[in-house]
């Protein structure tokens, strides 16, 4: 009898030793004369359990984790390959783990189950059903379905995806060429959901982009993926080749008469290229300088042509909507935030990972009921939601429901769904300083408040931290933040003040404390 064993293969699992675990299992199985087939799945996104080794049984998949190299012998001694056995690392049936069971995995329904590069696996779990439906619809009907789903841009700006598509559908292209551009420049710290799509379920992104192409009449797509994600690029390229080989990309897709080509382009370590107009400049082979809007990229986009620029998660939500129906997606959520958002619980967290939920639960539920509090075991003090341009939230705001409008009311953003937790050892004036320093490193340089303001911001915060004229410098820093907010073309300069202002407002003591100790030191 052959026992089938699954060992994850995403970047985090590999970073925690999954490749060596997979090879060791094969070697030790041979020594024990046990017939095993080791398959590489993606990851379930339950990162504290990585490497999570799963075993197929009639009852479902049993899991063992976190498996380290030293555990392999004892796992074989316990005959783990039979599934339901006693072992300190046994976690039972994987799908019954509450962390996973309580999620609503619309987009990530296949992640960690499939071999990411197996077209058969993808098709066996509803893959390409959305595309099959879309082929039967008119462009307008596809756009209507996306509108009805209530899907909003998952990159962070939350602009209604259907309306963007409508604009591109309606506007004529001077050169008879429209484009679908996937923004896979996932630079926000604390986020990895795009990476998980590309590494663990790349066909889903290919399907979503092809549907977008049919919807707006675009025949060329580009995925702009950051260079920090080598495995994403490798898996995408492999899946795209498979799709071409199976008539799921290229000319006359599945006999529909429709054409769609897709290519991966690699970024080069510039955070600003996650801003859509900067990304387009970069795709055109230029410095990633932000463009003024209008004109919108939907009207004058890549190479001057009408272009849909969508985040990975927006495009990855589309196959579900076209397969299960717009209503199935729109039925869950809160207020104007419909559907699900794959949250990423990160930083100093005990149970970090991917948590796809319908909008609506509170931030606190996410951080404690899923995250289990801090990894260090110390009290949680501050949480940055939405990447390096997102505000830091103090305890008084942790009851905020996870929804776009709910967060803007608190002068915060949900962004791309990244949640970075900090324990009570954090110095918030140091975090504020880093926000400005990051802007110095990553500003494209077009707008003065962003280019120069960020440098001045670092200097002012340094003076505050050194205890020099603290009151006057705090006022100066407030002024500077306002100038950056009002005087920058894009979110880089326009949002860098959010983490700084929130730190000043909710964690004032960290600025004053430093000031006080500096003054004391001087007096002594």
């Amino acid at each position, binding site marked *: 009898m052959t026992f089938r064993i699954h060992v994850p293969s995403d970047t985090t699992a590999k970073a925690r030793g999954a490749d060596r675990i997979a090879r060791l299992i094969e070697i030790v199985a041979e020594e024990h004369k046990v017939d095993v087939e080791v398959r590489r799945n993606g990851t379930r996104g339950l990162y504290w359990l990585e490497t999570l080794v799963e075993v197929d049984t009639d009852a479902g998949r049993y899991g063992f984790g976190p498996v380290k190299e030293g555990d392999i012998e004892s796992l074989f001694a316990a005959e783990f390959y039979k599934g339901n056995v006693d072992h300190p690392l046994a976690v039972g049936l994987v799908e019954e783990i509450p962390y996973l069971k309580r999620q609503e995995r619309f987009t990530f329904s296949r992640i960690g189950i499939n071999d990411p590069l197996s077209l058969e696996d993808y098709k066996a779990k509803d893959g390409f059903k959305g595309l099959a439906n879309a082929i039967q619809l008119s462009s307008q009907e596809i756009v209507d379905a996306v509108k009805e789903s209530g899907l909003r841009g998952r990159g962070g700006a939350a602009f209604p995806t259907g309306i963007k598509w409508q604009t591109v559908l309606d506007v004529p292209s001077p050169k008879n060429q429209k484009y679908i551009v996937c923004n896979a420049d996932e*630079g926000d710290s604390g986020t990895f959901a795009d990476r998980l799509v590309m590494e663990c379920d790349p066909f889903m992104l290919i399907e979503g982009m092809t549907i977008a192409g049919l919807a707006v009449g675009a025949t060329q797509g580009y995925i702009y993926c950051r260079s920090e994600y080598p495995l994403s690029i490798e898996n995408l390229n492999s899946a795209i080749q498979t799709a071409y080989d199976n008539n799921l990309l290229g000319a006359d897709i599945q006999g529909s008469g429709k054409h769609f080509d897709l290519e991966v382009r690699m970024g*080069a370590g510039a955070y600003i290229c996650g801003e859509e107009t900067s990304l387009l400049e970069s795709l055109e082979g230029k410095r990633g300088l932000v463009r003024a809007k209008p004109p919108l990229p939907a009207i004058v986009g890549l*190479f001057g042509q009408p272009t849909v620029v969508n985040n990975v998660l927006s495009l990855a939500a589309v196959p579900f909507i076209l397969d299960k129906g717009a209503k199935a997606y729109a039925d869950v959520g809160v207020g104007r935030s419909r559907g699900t958002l794959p949250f990423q619980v990160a930083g100093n967290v005990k149970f970090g990972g991917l948590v796809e939920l319908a909008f609506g639960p509170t931030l606190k539920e996410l951080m404690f009921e899923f995250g289990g509090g801090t990894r260090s075991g110390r009290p949680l003090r501050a949480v940055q939601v939405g990447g390096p341009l997102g505000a830091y939230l103090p305890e008084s705001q942790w009851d905020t429901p996870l929804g776009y409008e709910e967060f803007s009311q608190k002068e915060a953003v949900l962004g791309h769904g990244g949640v970075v937790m900090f324990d009570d050892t954090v110095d918030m004036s140091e975090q504020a300083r880093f926000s400005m320093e990051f802007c110095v490193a990553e500003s494209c340089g077009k707008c003065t408040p962003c280019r120069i303001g960020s440098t001045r911001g670092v200097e002012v915060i340094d003076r505050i931290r050194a205890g020099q004229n603290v009151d006057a410098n705090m006022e100066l820093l407030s002024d500077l933040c306002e100038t950056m907010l009002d005087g920058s073309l894009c979110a880089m300069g326009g949002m860098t003040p959010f983490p700084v202002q929130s730190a000043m407002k909710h964690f004032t003591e960290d600025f004053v404390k430093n000031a006080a100790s500096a003054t004391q030191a001087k007096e002594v």
Partner: protein
Amino acid sequence: MTTLKAVAWEPVTAQAIIDELKSKPGALLPILHAIQDRFSYIPDEAVSLIAQALKLTRAEVHGVISFYHHFRTHQPGRHVVEICRAEACQSQGARALEAHAKAALGVDYHQTTPDRNITLEPVYCLGNCSCGPSIRVGNDIHADVDAARFDELVESLKTDRVEIL
């Protein structure tokens, strides 16, 4: 462990790379990546060849190279070690790791150890944010890196590692 397979500068190879890619729309970034992947950096000589092929000025090509953190114009050490400086890693001790790495290697960011073995670079997020601090060596990403783990990794880079498994 991935080692950069640095190939010495050869204008003929570079020209072949450029010719293969130059007709792509927006060809400059793909060309720069291909050149750097082959030679481990983008030499000045390459800038002239690229400019000529794409009908750009050398200044324009230089402007693009200098805009992006990923591209480098000097040969790096045998290994490039990138330490994540972003918030999720900070919350798990990345600041201490950065300080340790600089002290242990005796270099600052963007510098190479005197034996030309390791170039140290900062990076802003490797997408391994639940299991930081994270570092990247070549194309391999390492999780939960504290000072001791960092020293082990550096030690393993000193000799060409023989894969036992």
